[in-house]
């Protein structure tokens, strides 16, 4: 006769199978009541572990700011503006002396750019902060840290000046505001409305950017756009062009849009329709999907004329997200500018930076440094991030302690429950087990038999609770955005959750020791004592 197998075990003798089947059914209770109860208890215990770990991971993610060691001084602020040169000198000198062991950035410009949105139409405003490609390697490295980098479309760890001519790094928050899929940013440019409209290449999407900004661009691009219209800072010979492209978002109303735009431009500005194309392959835009080009202009349009057209289009064709574009290469910094000597151009020395940033490796040194700058320049640093980090440490410790306590007490309660269940079961049938022993059944048979039963009960309850847990987590993930559930729930993990497996392993190990001792103690009685209930 071949050994009989069940889902869990291989039985060598028919008696083993009979005993296992009958006693397992008895231990798991009527209608599997005990198994259900155990599954529920385990489910809530494991759910607590998963939830606690998710909360901690979420907090950790939130707190794991690559810029925690970066401090920003808003030197364009009225309070510091008159001391700008002195403050900059102080930072340059102290960075060189390493008295406080900090490294500094050359300085940044801040700007507000208006972006065309993808789905909802209209525009949104986003904070921009600039950096110096040649000197701010530390800052760029912080941005490109593995934990911060979500999508890398442009190999940002190997940035080149060419990439930064029209390339920007944006935060995940901006992606949400733009109402687009991240994947779309790989092939489509985002367009800003700043005087004229300019398509930008997204080099990377990151978790966060310095100073809570949403766009990170090279100094020269920011300066070029800030100064656009005031002077010929781009390095190109002329801003004028006789070609005008209108970018619009159309659906099934294309013919009507074309008629309306053509009529408007003809009647108001005397522009003649030239041709129409789908968005150029080399210039796929995220927000507009159709381009119409107008030629045959009587004369080149200067900046003020273009602004009038732009205003009119924005007012009259608002629903179509209409944007004008000339030769967009006119707007981005000329290649020679990007490669220029950073110290010799007015972008870095002639202009006042809006922000001076520095990085302190040892956060405990920030307080003495704060004292110095407060006394010298009445300058207060924003230490909220540092304090938040310290608070996180406390919260994290408390959470771990509470989770461990919860797991301990839950596990303890479950084990007590199981232990009493098994003990009372054995006591109830001690007469029968004694009879089996009297007939010559080896104690090892009962010992192994009950260990198998307990193992199967715990393994079944654990498996079931894990299945429910996985199902619940899946359901939460699928519905969390629709139901506006807290974001930290998205951090719940089952299979990669080391805490969960550790809790299960400890629970299994303690169960084994506990039940082994119970069975050894129970079976140490002679059969006669079991049959006649002599303790």
């Amino acid at each position, binding site marked *: *006769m071949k050994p009989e197998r069940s889902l869990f075990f291989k039985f*060598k*003798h*028919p*008696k083993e199978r*009979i*005993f296992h089947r*009958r*006693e397992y*059914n*008895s231990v798991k209770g009527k209608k599997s009541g005990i198994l259900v109860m155990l599954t529920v208890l385990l489910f809530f215990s494991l759910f607590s572990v998963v939830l606690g770990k998710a909360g901690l991971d979420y907090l950790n993610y939130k707190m794991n700011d690559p810029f925690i060691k970066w401090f920003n001084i808003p030197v364009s602020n009225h309070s510091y503006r008159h001391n700008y040169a002195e403050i900059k000198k102080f930072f340059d000198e102290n960075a060189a002396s390493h008295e406080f062991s900090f490294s500094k950035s050359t300085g940044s410009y801040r700007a507000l750019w208006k972006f065309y949105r993808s789905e909802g139409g209209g525009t949104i405003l986003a904070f921009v902060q600039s950096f110096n490609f040649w000197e701010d390697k530390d800052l760029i490295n912080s941005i490109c840290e593995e934990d911060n980098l979500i999508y890398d479309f442009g190999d940002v760890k190997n940035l080149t000046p060419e990439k930064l001519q029209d390339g920007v790094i944006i935060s995940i928050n901006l992606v949400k505001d733009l109402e687009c899929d991240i994947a779309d940013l790989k092939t489509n440019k985002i367009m800003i409305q700043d005087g004229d409209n300019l398509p930008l290449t997204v080099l990377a999407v990151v978790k966060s950017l310095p100073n809570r900004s949403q766009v990170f661009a090279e100094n020269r691009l920011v300066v070029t756009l800030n100064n656009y219209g005031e002077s010929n800072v781009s390095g190109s010979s002329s801003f004028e062009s006789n070609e005008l492209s209108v970018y619009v978002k159309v659906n099934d109303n294309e013919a009507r849009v074309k008629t309306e735009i053509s009529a408007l431009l003809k009647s108001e500005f005397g522009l003649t329709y030239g041709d129409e194309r789908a968005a150029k392959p080399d210039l796929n835009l995220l927000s507009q999907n159709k381009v119409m080009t107008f030629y045959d202009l009587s004369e080149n349009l200067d900046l003020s004329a273009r602004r009038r057209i732009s205003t009119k289009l924005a007012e009259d064709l608002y629903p179509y997200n209409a944007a004008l574009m000339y030769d967009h290469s006119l707007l981005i910094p000329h290649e020679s500018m990007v490669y220029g000597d950073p110290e010799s151009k007015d972008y870095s020395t002639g202009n006042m930076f809006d922000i001076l940033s520095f990085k302190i490796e040892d956060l405990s040194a920030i307080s003495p440094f704060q004292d110095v700058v407060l006394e010298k320049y009445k300058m207060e640093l924003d230490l909220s991030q540092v304090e938040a980090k310290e608070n996180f440490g406390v919260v994290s410790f408390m959470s771990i302690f509470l989770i461990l306590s919860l797991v301990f007490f839950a596990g303890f309660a479950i084990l007590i429950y199981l232990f009493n269940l098994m003990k009372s079961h054995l006591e109830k*049938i001690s*007469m*029968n087990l*004694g*009879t*089996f*022993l*009297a*007939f*010559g*059944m*080896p*104690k090892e048979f009962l010992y192994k038999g009950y260990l198998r039963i307990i193992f199967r009960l715990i393994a079944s309850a654990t498996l079931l609770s894990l299945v429910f847990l996985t199902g619940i987590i899946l359901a939460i993930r699928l519905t969390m955005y629709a139901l506006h559930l807290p974001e930290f729930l998205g951090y719940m993990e089952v299979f990669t959750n080391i805490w969960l497996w550790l809790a299960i392993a400890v629970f299994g190990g303690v169960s084994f020791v506990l039940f082994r001792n119970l069975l050894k103690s129970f079976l140490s009685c*002679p*059969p*006669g*004592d079991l*049959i006649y209930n002599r303790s």
Partner: protein
Amino acid sequence: MQNDAAFFFKNIQFGYDSKVILNIPDLLIPRAGMVFIIGPSGIGKSTLLESIGLMSNTFKNFDDSSSEFSILNENFNPEYLWKRDENKLTSIREKLFSFIFQTTNLMSNFSVLENILMAANFTPDEQNKIESEVKLLLKKMSLPDDILDRSPQEISGGQKQRVAFVRALVGQFSILLADEPTGNLDIENSKALFGILSDHIKEKNKVAVIVTHHSELAHEYGNMIIEILPTKNGYATTRVLKKEAFTFKEGVKS
């Protein structure tokens, strides 16, 4: 004489803690036949049965030089067995003994057949043979075949007792030990069961050692009757009331 002994006792005492309750100076229980143990309640009948069935260690003051205890002609030091050789105890129980208790001790969550199989000594290949033997015994006990699939909770008290008899008689054993096996039955049913048991024991050339209160049943079916009676020393002792010539037939297989 000792060669035909299921049990042989010489200078053996039984008791609990430090108290001796039964002293057997010399007693031989033959290897075949129906042996009844009678005596007043609480005198030590069940203690004796438990001890010789190796269910409890109530042996006292065993002295290698003056005491002797043998099962099927093999001498044992029972105190040593209990302390040092539990595997041997299990092996003796498995190979030699079978039991019937006053309370049937059937597992209510097992079917009747499963209860019988759990107590039987068989290899996996012998399951079908054992089940056939069970069916034959059911017929002898006037029990229907379909009772095998039922739970002990679904059958009457009398049927349970008959199932306990079947459980005891099935498979390989040499000595049947029964403690008040018909204690819960009326006299007619008791007689019927003892009749079947007596026939089976004689047919299979085995010995049944039975504790009972019914001395009339003992006299009717017993080949040997051992009475346990009190003494002035504070412990009980044994006396053989009846002993028929009923000898073990060498070579007769069960």
